[in-house]
């Protein structure tokens, strides 16, 4: 394949919002203020499961400075989901702004608005609540038992799409999909491995806590500035929750301090909206870090069971994967994260017999939601450890085992037809796939063949491990993105789009795509994104969709604008359309005469037959081309303490064309470190009553600079024919590799397989000692 030549693509263009952020000029939600602004706080439940028998707010209301207090009695009872997904959401409507029941420690009980934060906090203490404490479900394995307490015994919860929803069994969703016949596959196999794994709950820990600010505009419309990854979904869900039409709501997302899925939830917008509508006053609500830990969303804890089978020569004959997913007390993203356990795992293998099933259950623990990796993390944990084991039992190097079994480009993937989120039209297939190249490049870079299987002796043992992974790029036939571009008289362009910059660099990458088409430097593109009044629709920042899907919309809009530019240019040059072209910001005619974009912009706006050169375009995706990656890690395990140290990490990634290599590397690195941190240190510690005991950075623990090992990131050359300039996604994929890669490396070092994450010293030590005892 000839390498295409680009001007602004595949270039480390400086992040368009970077300098503003670095000099402290940019404003995040909490940096906005309104005159007369109130502050809001939620009273939160001390119990994991309880009914509110009585609630008295008189004393709180009487406190000077308190402007309003709301309980479930003061709001309409409307079932909603906080999941910022497309409509109708594949998540149940099982939550109420305020309810007469609480379902986890931290659940909302009452809402206070006051002149200051301090007064609001004081008022919370004055609210008197009588609870009838109910037995709680604190273990997902027990959620579906016959005598389990029912978490959603109310009659009005339901799901708006035709899938099984059984709250009476604490079951949010079921998935069951297969191709071929797994039993038959196991029969053909020479070796079968069966195993069970469990991954822990985790916090996204975006540095910016959730925040929202609302007020009424000149026409009495509700304006909300918010830390959201999904402004348009937020508008729709606020409309439902508060029973006001969409046209009365405007959502603006300013700079956003990291999301990772944690801000794909409509957590605060309905509350500030409610207060502003009832009081007429602006109000701000910002979560404390503690509140983020206890009441925002977490990664789904899952118990995964897997069976993998292969012939003597390593050819896979069957994979059977099951996930019991703990979605917490609300089913937000329950079904879709679970189905992604299969979708992000099984398509990687040329295996004729596949089965995936899942039960998603309610518990009274933390509410789970979208989290970078979105099920792929959990699926690959189980599969990649079991396959490591299987390869070893067959006497094969796992690398060779993978090379034998992974798909190549241009493959049909029938399992996706069974597991897809949306309608699947035609046979789902995978276009570009350089997974084999990733495996080879990564192994080479870390010295896999030389170093593996040589733990050494003594207290400190070394080990090597690997894993492979995939993600998607958008949700086909469901996600839609759109963009609008117009020219200015100086030849610059405004790019307005719904796509949501959350730190990942979408404003920059999408500006580069527009700049490439319009043949200008990226700094000639002025980006404005994510304002439901001013920008066209986009589903928002999730499902690794932005570069791929919003990128195509921007490219189409830019191409339409380019056509208009050429028309005006041809007219000015008095040349036929067919004989002019656009290059380096000029329309060039047959005799090399040219006009600049500035001349064209000025002409169109001021001189003759004036009109606005502009266009909008929108796109849905027809497929979701997966990026792929292979991870390799070398660890050192201290047999005396159980401490695992990462010596070196290599990741090789296939994400198609790199629109911006600097930002793409940042995505791969950021996801990887989050993944390693998750594998080694992060965890929620719950009391026997279901209360999170470590809701702070001090005890929750995330990686800091000193924990960073030597890392090599390799991008394998690849081109996705359906993507904008050959691109597919890179935002999520690399978070999923560390769990299994590190577990496999620990096995190589000290001969124990760890099945439960994170791999903290206590667990490693216990396993090592158990092995020594025999």
């Amino acid at each position, binding site marked *: 394949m000839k390498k295409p030549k680009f001007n602004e693509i595949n270039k480390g263009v400086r992040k368009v919002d970077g300098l503003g952020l*670095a*000099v402290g000029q940019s404003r995040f939600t909490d940096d906005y203020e309104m005159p007369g602004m109130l502050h809001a706080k939620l009273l939160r439940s001390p119990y994991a499961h309880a009914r509110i028998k009585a609630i008295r707010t008189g004393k709180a209301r009487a406190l000077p400075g308190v402007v309003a207090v709301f309980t479930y009695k003061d709001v309409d009872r409307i079932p909603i989901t906080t999941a910022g997904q497309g409509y109708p959401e594949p998540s149940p409507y099982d939550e109420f702004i305020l309810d007469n029941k609480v379902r986890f420690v931290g659940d909302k009980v009452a809402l206070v608005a006051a002149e200051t934060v301090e007064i609001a906090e004081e008022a919370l203490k004055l609210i008197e609540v009588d609870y009838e404490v109910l037995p709680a479900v604190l273990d997902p394995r027990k959620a579906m038992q016959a005598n389990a307490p029912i978490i959603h015994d109310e009659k009005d919860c339901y799901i708006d799409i035709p899938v099984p929803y059984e709250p009476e069994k604490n079951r949010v969703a079921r998935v069951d999909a297969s191709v071929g016949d797994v039993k038959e596959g196991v029969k053909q196999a020479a070796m079968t491995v069966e195993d069970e794994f469990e991954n822990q709950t985790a916090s996204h820990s975006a540095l*910016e806590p959730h925040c929202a600010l609302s007020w009424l505009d000149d026409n009495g419309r509700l304006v909300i500035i918010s830390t959201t990854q999904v402004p348009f979904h937020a508008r729709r869900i606020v409309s439902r929750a508060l029973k006001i039409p969409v046209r009365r709501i405007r959502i603006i997302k300013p700079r956003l301090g*990291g999301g990772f899925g944690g801000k794909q939830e409509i957590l605060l917008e309905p509350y500030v909206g409610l207060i502003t509508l009832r009081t007429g006053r602006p109000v701000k609500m910002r979560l404390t870090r503690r509140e983020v830990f206890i009441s925002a969303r977490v990664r789904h804890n899952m118990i995964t069971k897997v069976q993998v089978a292969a012939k003597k020569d390593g050819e896979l004959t069957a994979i059977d994967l099951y996930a019991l997913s703990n979605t917490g007390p609300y089913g937000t993203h329950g079904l879709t994260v679970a189905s992604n356990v299969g979708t992000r795992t099984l398509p990687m293998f040329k295996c004729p017999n596949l089965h995936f099933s899942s039960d998603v259950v309610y518990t009274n623990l933390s509410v789970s939601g979208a989290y970078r990796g979105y099920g792929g993390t959990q699926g690959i944990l189980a599969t990649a450890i079991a396959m490591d084991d299987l390869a070893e039992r067959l006497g094969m190097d796992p690398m060779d085992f993978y090379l034998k079994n992974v798909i190549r480009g241009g493959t049909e993937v029938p399992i996706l037809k069974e597991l897809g989120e949306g309608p699947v039209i035609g046979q789902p297939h995978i276009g570009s796939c350089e997974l084999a190249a990733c495996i080879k490049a990564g192994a080479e870079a870390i010295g896999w063949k030389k170093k593996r299987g040589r733990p050494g002796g003594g207290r400190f043992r070394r080990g090597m491990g690997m894993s492979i992974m995939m993600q998607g790029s958008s949700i086909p036939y469901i996600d839609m993105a759109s963009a609008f571009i117009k020219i200015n008289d100086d030849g610059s362009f405004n790019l307005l789009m719904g796509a949501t910059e959350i730190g990942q660099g979408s404003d920059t990458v999408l500006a580069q795509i527009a700049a490439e088409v319009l043949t200008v430097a990226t700094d000639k593109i002025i980006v404005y994104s994510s304002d439901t009044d001013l920008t066209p629709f986009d589903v928002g920042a999730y499902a690794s969709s932005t570069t791929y899907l919003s990128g195509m919309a921007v490219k189409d809009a830019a191409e339409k604008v380019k056509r208009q530019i050429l028309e005006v240019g041809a007219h000015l040059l008095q040349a036929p359309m067919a004989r002019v072209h656009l290059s380096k910001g000029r329309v060039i005619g047959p005799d090399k005469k040219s006009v600049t974009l500035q001349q064209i912009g000025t002409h169109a706006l001021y001189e003759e037959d004036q009109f606005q050169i502009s266009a909008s375009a929108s796109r849905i995706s027809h497929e979701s081309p997966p990026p792929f990656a292979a991870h390799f890690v070398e660890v050192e395990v201290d047999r005396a303490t159980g401490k695992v140290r990462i010596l070196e990490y290599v990741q090789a990634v296939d994400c198609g064309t790199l629109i911006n290599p600097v930002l793409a590397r940042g995505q791969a690195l950021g996801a990887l470190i989050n993944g390693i941190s998750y594998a080694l240190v992060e965890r929620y510690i719950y009391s026997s009553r279901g209360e999170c005991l470590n809701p702070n950075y001090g005890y929750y623990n995330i990686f800091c600079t000193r924990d960073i090992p030597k*890392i090599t990131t390799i991008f394998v050359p690849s081109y996705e024919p359906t993507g904008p300039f050959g691109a597919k996604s890179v935002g999520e994929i690399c978070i999923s590799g560390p769990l299994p890669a590190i577990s496999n490396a620990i096995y190589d070092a000290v001969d124990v397989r760890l099945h439960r994450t994170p791999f903290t010293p206590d667990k490693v030590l216990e396993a090592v000692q158990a092995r020594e005892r025999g």
Partner: protein
Amino acid sequence: MEIILTVNKQSRKVEVRPAETLLDLLRRLGYKSVKYGCGEGACGACTVIMDGRPVNSCLILAVTVDGREVTTVEDLGTIQKPHLLQSAFVESGAVQCGFCTPGMIMAAKALLDRNPSPSEDEIKEALDGNLCRCTGYVQIIEAVRLAARRMKAEKKKN
């Protein structure tokens, strides 16, 4: 209570409440680059330089800063004329969401002020109290090295 403090070379006389933190005070005065990330000294998003040393402004009571001198990232540079650390951060990909960036840059500034050519380990140690969830730190460390190199070259020129 009334105190006098210097923020970004400007002396200010301000009324402070007894429980108010320096973080809240600075934000109230309009220095919005100083961020709340945890409020308990564990994330570094609120880092400012006080009398030459990086501090977590969320841990300091405003009443105790009478007579002190505080610098925030707003004082280093502007979009038109950024500080070398600021441009190095952007070029190296050290700014993703940018929420940790002001604190991170102030911690790096304090380091480079006392140690113009830090080793990688010294950079890691100096930034250890500043969390970043987006970048994985690698490009931040690269940015500090790049800025250090450029600052030294600049010094030589003058």
